Structure formats: structure tokens, C-alpha cells
């Protein structure tokens, strides 16, 4: 990367930190792995603060109970009392995605040689999470309803002649779910980060381009402030959407229409 020429995609590069092989597979410890572990440590630390189990909670305990209560509520409203056993999974999804999204927005770039890495901007990661959710939905559906689970493709009250038409559409919309889950998160993250990087590069380039360039740089700076705010919002919303959609799909599988 030469001065004044910024590659907005470089931030998504996975760089190995420590090589590691299991059999013929390369499972090197990378910057992506590092940030996943940081997310794990943060979630663990946060939850540990809420484990004092006091009758009258302290402020950290209130925060942790607020988060768990939020997931509890979402699952109970959308799935019902049977959703109880899915709460750990939904909670893990929400916490991991939320913390990963927010970690990616840390302004670590101001320290030379460091930059934050957004694990959720890798579709190798969001895709695996989405497929995991989707597999759990299918397994739960088959476990609870057997082959009757496939009546999901025929919405209740469909007229008989419409079934051959409706069923394929429903099937496609069902199969699209993992892609919509994984791609939505991945695209939302990558788009915001590219936008920030591009406007950042405008500021740098504008600095070399005389008074006109300075104007553009100032505008870009204002815009970048706005985009960062938007991205913070997006980080929370995308985590919420992922957890909510998984909950709704599970609700389909549990309650079948």
C-alpha cells in the first residue's frame, strides 16, 4: 500500500499469526481467530460480572440481567414456553455477533501497526453460523414433527389446486433462509467498513490536493462521523436481526404454523 492509495479491501485480509496444523488441515491462529478469542473473553468477563447472584443486583448484574432478559423475552414471545431450551443457543448467537460487530468498530487504526478486524465481515464465519442455525431448525423440526415438518411448505388453508404452485415457492423461500441469514450480516458489515475506509482515504488524498481537496476532506470527515454512528446502530441491529430470525425459524419448526 503506497501513500495516498488505500485499498479498502485490505482490512478484510486474514493474516496468520501462528501456524498450526491438524493433520492435513491448516488451522493456523490468525488475526480472525485472535478477535474471536477477544470476543469470547469479553463475553465471559461481562457474564462473570453478572454472576454475583445477589437478591438486590449491582449495576453490572443489572446490565447482564438486562441482556439475558432481553433474549428471554424475545424467545418466549416468538416461540412460547417451549422456547426455553433454545435460549442458550440464541443468547450465544446474539452475544457473539454483537460483540464481534462492535469490536470491528474499535478505532484501533490510530495506533500504528494495529487495526481492528471484524470477524463477522467474513462470510466463511457468518455462513457457518447461518448453516448451524438452519441445521438446528431442520433437526428440531424433524425431531418434533417427523415428516410432517415438510407440511411447512404448504401454508395452512392453501386451496388444493394452488399446492403445486405454492409448495416450490415455499421450499425456495425456506432454502434461502441460511443465505439471507449469513449474507445479510456479512454484507451489512462489509459495506459499512468499506464506506468508512473509502471516506477515510478521501481525507488522506484530499490532504495532498490543495484547498479544494481540504474541503472534500472536511466533508468526508463529517460524513465518516455520521457513518460510524450508523455502523454502531447497524452492529446492534444486525446481531438482533440474526437472533430474531433464528428465533422465528425455530418457532416455525417448533410450532409448525
Amino acid at each position, binding site marked *: 500500500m503506497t501513500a495516498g492509495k488505500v485499498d479498502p479491501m485490505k482490512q478484510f485480509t486474514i493474516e496468520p499469526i501462528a501456524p498450526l496444523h491438524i493433520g492435513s488441515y491448516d488451522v493456523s491462529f490468525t488475526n*480472525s481467530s485472535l478477535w*474471536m*478469542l477477544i470476543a469470547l473473553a469479553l*463475553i465471559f468477563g461481562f457474564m462473570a460480572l453478572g454472576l454475583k447472584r445477589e437478591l438486590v443486583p449491582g449495576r453490572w448484574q443489572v446490565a447482564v440481567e438486562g441482556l439475558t432478559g432481553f433474549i428471554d423475552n424475545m424467545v418466549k414471545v416468538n416461540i412460547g414456553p417451549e422456547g426455553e431450551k433454545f435460549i442458550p443457543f440464541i443468547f450465544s448467537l446474539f452475544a457473539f455477533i454483537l460483540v464481534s460487530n462492535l469490536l470491528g468498530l474499535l478505532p484501533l487504526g490510530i495506533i500504528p501497526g494495529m487495526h481492528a478486524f471484524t470477524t463477522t465481515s467474513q462470510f466463511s464465519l457468518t455462513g457457518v453460523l447461518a448453516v448451524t442455525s438452519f441445521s438446528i431448525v431442520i433437526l428440531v423440526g424433524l425431531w418434533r414433527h417427523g415428516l410432517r415438518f415438510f407440511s411447512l411448505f404448504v401454508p395452512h388453508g392453501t386451496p388444493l389446486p394452488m399446492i403445486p404452485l405454492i409448495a416450490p415457492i415455499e421450499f425456495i423461500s425456506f432454502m434461502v433462509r441460511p443465505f439471507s441469514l449469513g449474507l445479510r450480516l456479512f454484507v451489512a458489515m462489509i459495506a459499512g467498513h468499506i464506506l468508512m475506509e473509502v471516506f477515510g482515504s478521501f481525507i488522506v488524498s484530499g490532504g495532498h490536493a490543495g484547498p479544494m481537496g481540504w474541503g472534500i476532506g472536511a466533508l468526508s470527515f463529517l460524513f465518516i462521523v455520521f457513518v460510524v454512528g450508523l455502523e454502531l446502530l447497524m452492529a446492534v441491529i444486525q446481531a438482533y436481526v440474526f437472533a430474531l430470525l433464528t428465533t422465528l425459524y425455530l418457532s416455525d419448526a417448533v410450532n409448525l404454523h
Partner: protein
Amino acid sequence: MPQISQLSAVFASQLFWLALVFGLIFFGIGRGMLPKVRSTIGARESKIADDLEKARAARAKADETEAAWRARMDEARVEAARIAHEAKQESARNTERRVNEALVKIDAKVESARVRIWTSVQAARAEMEVVAAEAAQQMVEQLTGMKIDKNDAANAVTAELRALAPAMRREHRAEDAARAKQPLASTVR
């Protein structure tokens, strides 16, 4: 786009570390710590519900006690009113009885006084007849110079007085009747 160009190179590593991290989050935090937090919330909620229930029960009991106390107070009030009424009646009866006793005594006294008066009147009348007979004897002797037998004079006076007696007696009776008409209280007084 590194996500695509690097995919085949890093996918195994991504999968491995994601499985490790997400597994730790799911089993360690989701299934290990989360239930503890949730059970704390549950325990708190049940404690609050419990305390509310207890408070409600205590209030119901207090209400009950108050109602019982009120009922006892009402009972006591009624009892007190009854006792007061009885005492009043009893004392009224006593007063009446004593008044009646007094009346009887007074009547007896009045009766004996009347009898005494009557006997005195009779004695006085007898004496008066003797005196009148003597007086009549002397008057006749001085006026006519006739000497009248003492017995004749006495007979004549007696006959005269007999003729007068009904009128006198009538007067006495009228007096008695007027006295009887006066109210009891004034008689007692």
C-alpha cells in the same frame, strides 16, 4: 475481495476457531453461566411474588382481626346499653316500691290521725252535749224560773243536735273528698 480469494486457504482455520470459540460460548456461557443468571432472576421474582403474597395474607389477617374487634365492640356496646337500661328500670322499680311503701305508711298515719280526730270530735261532742244541756237548764231556769230535770234537758239537746248532724257531716265529707283529689306527690310531700 480477500473473503473470496482467501476462502480456500483460511476456511479450515476459520471453521476450527469458530467452532472452538462458539462452542466455548455456547457450552461455557450459554449453558454454564446463563442459567445461573436466569435462575437468579427467577429466584428474585419468586421472592417478590412470595413477599407480596405474604403481605396480602397479613393484610387479610389484619382486616379479619379488625372486623372481629369491631364485632366485639358492637357486642359490648349493646351489652352495656342493655345493662344500663336494666339498671335504670331496676332503680325506677325500687323508687316506685319505696314510694308505695312510704305511701302506705303515710296512709296508715293519716288514717290513725283521722281516727284520733274522730274520737276527739266524738268526745268533744259528748262533752258539748253535757255542757249544752246544763246551759239549756240554766237558761230555762233564768228565763222562766222553771226547774227542768237534768235528763229532760239532755234529751232535748241530743234531739236538737241529731237534727243538725246530717248537715255537719256533709261538710266534713266535702273536705275529705277535696283532699283525696290532690295528686299523690303533693300528699307525700
